[in-house]
């Protein structure tokens, strides 16, 4: 782990991050240590190659998509604030959040979580999961277990089930609808980040 003295003073914009993301100070600290661990050459920014240090991520079928999800489109580097903001999506939802109209929707709401997952499919950011994009993900996940024909059929079936407006692609609403029975907050939360 990093050798700097871990205190909140070293972290830029610490309070703002706490406010924005809802993480506690202790968590921000912990995430900062992790950030420093990943940031091998100490530049204060992460690049996609730095994520390669996480060995298991390489074995994850959608590992590369996850990594690219951290980076905004067009950006090559990731600073700590963005890192934390992305991870804020995976905080368990607060049960007693006061509904304030002025507050923007927090990062860890179900909608934002779903949006994050949706964007894993939708790499070209056109708001729809096309058949090709679905196939790519299926290919990555099912790997060598199925043939191309079977993949096609499965993708076909999935689109058929979800596609209500018959445009042969899955929009975000259709995506959300197909997952309505799943407890997204449960499934997409990492408990220790609460």
């Amino acid at each position, binding site marked *: 782990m990093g050798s700097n003295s871990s205190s909140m003073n070293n972290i830029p914009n610490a309070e703002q991050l706490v406010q924005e993301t809802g993480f506690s100070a202790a968590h921000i600290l912990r995430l900062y240590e992790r950030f420093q661990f990943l940031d091998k050459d100490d530049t204060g920014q992460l690049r996609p190659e730095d994520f390669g240090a996480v060995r*298991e991520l390489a074995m994850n079928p959608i590992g590369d998509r996850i990594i690219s999800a951290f980076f905004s489109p067009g950006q090559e580097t990731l600073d700590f604030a963005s890192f934390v903001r992305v991870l804020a999506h995976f905080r368990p939802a607060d049960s007693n959040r006061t509904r304030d109209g002025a507050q923007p929707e927090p990062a860890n709401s179900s909608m934002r979580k779903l949006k994050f997952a949706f964007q894993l499919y939708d790499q070209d950011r056109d708001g729809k999961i096309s058949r090709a994009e679905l196939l790519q993900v299926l290919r990555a996940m099912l790997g060598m277990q199925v043939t191309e024909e079977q993949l096609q*059929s499965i993708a076909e079936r999935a689109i058929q089930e979800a596609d209500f407006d018959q445009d042969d692609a899955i929009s975000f609403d259709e995506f959300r609808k197909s997952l309505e029975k799943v407890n997204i907050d449960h499934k997409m939360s*990492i408990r220790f980040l609460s």
Partner: protein
Amino acid sequence: MAALWTLSVLLSACLLWPVCLALTPPAELPQPHNLPPLLGFNSSDGSPSVDLPMALRVFSVDYHHVQAPFEIVLWIMLASLAKLGFHWSGRVPAVFPESCLLIMVGLLVGGVIYGVRHSAPPTLSADAFFLFLLPPIVLDAGYFLPGKLFFENLGTILWYAVLGTLWNVLGIGLSLYGVCLLAQSSLGDVSLLHCLLFGSLIAAVDPVAVLSVFQEMHVNEQLHILVFGESLLNDAVTVVLYKLFESFLRLPSVSGLDVLLGGCRVVVVGLGGLFVGLFFGLLAALTSRFTSRAQVIAPLFVFLYSYLSYLTSEMLHLSGIMAIVTCAVTMKQYVEANVSERSNTSIQYFLKMWSSVSETLIFIFLGVSTIQDVHMWSWPFVCSTLLLCLAWRATGVLLLTAVVNKLRRNTVTFRDQFIIAYGGLRGAICFSLVFLIDDFPKKRLFITTTIVVILFTVFVQGMTIKPLVELLDVKRKKRALPTVSEEIHSRLIDHLLAGIEDVVGYWGQHYWKDRFEQFNRKYLRRFLIREDHQAPSSILRVYQELERREQRRDEEAPPIEDPRSHSRPLLPEEMDSIRRILSRNLQNFNKKTPAYSRHTLHQDTTMDKTRKPLYRHHSLGERYKYNTITHWPQGEDGEFNGSHRVRAGLCRSHTVCAVGPRPVLQDSSAPAASAQRGPADPKSAATKEDQVFPQNQAPVGGEAPKKQLSFVLENEKQP
């Protein structure tokens, strides 16, 4: 219908009359007849004929020769007839749980026997119970355990099992001692250790009783798994505490070190049972890999290895229940992938049958054993035991849940807590344990009290739990209807979460699940499953199951061509079965079992599906048949002797490449198949034939030619 039932019971009671008349005291085994038959001289004792030397007997009765097996069979017959009668008796099952009725039958029979012989009827010996009657039930429970749900809730289950049991044992034991001190006159000679010993055996929630009551109630799966898992796992704690207190009783004095050692023993017993079970489970999985040439005995290995694991851990004084459950859970996925479909069905049916018989026997014997010669009764002891059992369990559950709810995502609601507390039934395990106590003046009292507690919990709590559940409106099992897209997206989210956990460096639940799956896939499955049976992922299974359902549906009703509807909503029965499959994550092509059903195994209506043609679903709504019968070398359509000749295996090598006009079939009997295809197909219905050849040029995203697939893919191999 009730008349029919009573008739059958009386009939079996009558069967026992001649048995009773000739019964020797239950402790003795009949001497095997080893006198060589002298010339023409039939030397049987029970013969009513006159002993004529040197004369042939035309007819004689030799009861002692067959006494032991005869009696056993009669008991089993009685149990099964009672069970039959119970299910035929109209409205009775709605009110009484089966266990109650069986105990009542046992009481009846016990009374009859007592009346005939004026001495105690045969009791349930602890050895017979632990060695013969309990293993089938636990094996059945372990084999059909919903694995995923169990492991997700494992922390909570362990929390309840270990801490809850400790709480109950100490609480009941100490307060009973207090009662004994108060009622010094009648109960003065019951020491603290005796009370603790009694507490340890009476606090144990019994899986048999719990299962038999819960299976008639449909509570949500999480609650079911909590109560059931707890009843399974608290065996380790119970047995250890029981043996601990028993050995303390024999020691001259008890020191703190002994208590500490006792604590270590709990861990050793639990983990030891686990490892024994793992070992035998893996062995069984490995053995099943090689059973392709002798399929008929494949189910036997399942039972042998499980029983062996139980016996081994009993021999080592470890927890037999944990061993057998672990063994079943471990070997299940590999065995199911390795053995043929029929063997799978046999295994399931036998498991259900044996566990059913065992359970029935246990309850009947409980009833019979209640009729005893000597009962010692003590109002304060019995009543306080009853009250304390309820009270301590309730407070224990409340306290533990308050703590565990902070750590869980799905909180255990108050209603769930009530069911957990109220559903803590005691059963035959307590009964057997109490008989094993070393003799001391008040042992009879303990036995009586145990019987009363068991009867009370089974009858009163068992009968009222259902109305109370309805009263409290426990969240019923949600009947979710997952779809393929849901499965895909859920899978994606799982991977995503695992990835994020890796990034963050947190070893969470997903991390371990993913790691285990990787390990499983890379090493275990390769090693333990036959090469061509390596299971596909669950997405593929869902898809295949969908195909199968469609095919079956279309078999029953002629399909209505509706070219408009591309997104046809899936039927409830399709979704129902998919839900079940998804909740299991195994390669179960033919199963239709609900999430957990104790006593029933759904009819395997899909067994004959391989006879029927399999449809492939074309995306443009076209349907065409693909006749699997053409695969068979004998070329006969529909005429096969039940041996499924369809080539087993999955995926890769078996797809039909549809680019060309004539699909090439994967089997070696391809020529026969291709010759059969087309309009001359003898088995096809008329409606489909014009659509045998999909338009290769149909531009559906440019991937239309690849629609033909063969998902016939059953597990049947050529024998």
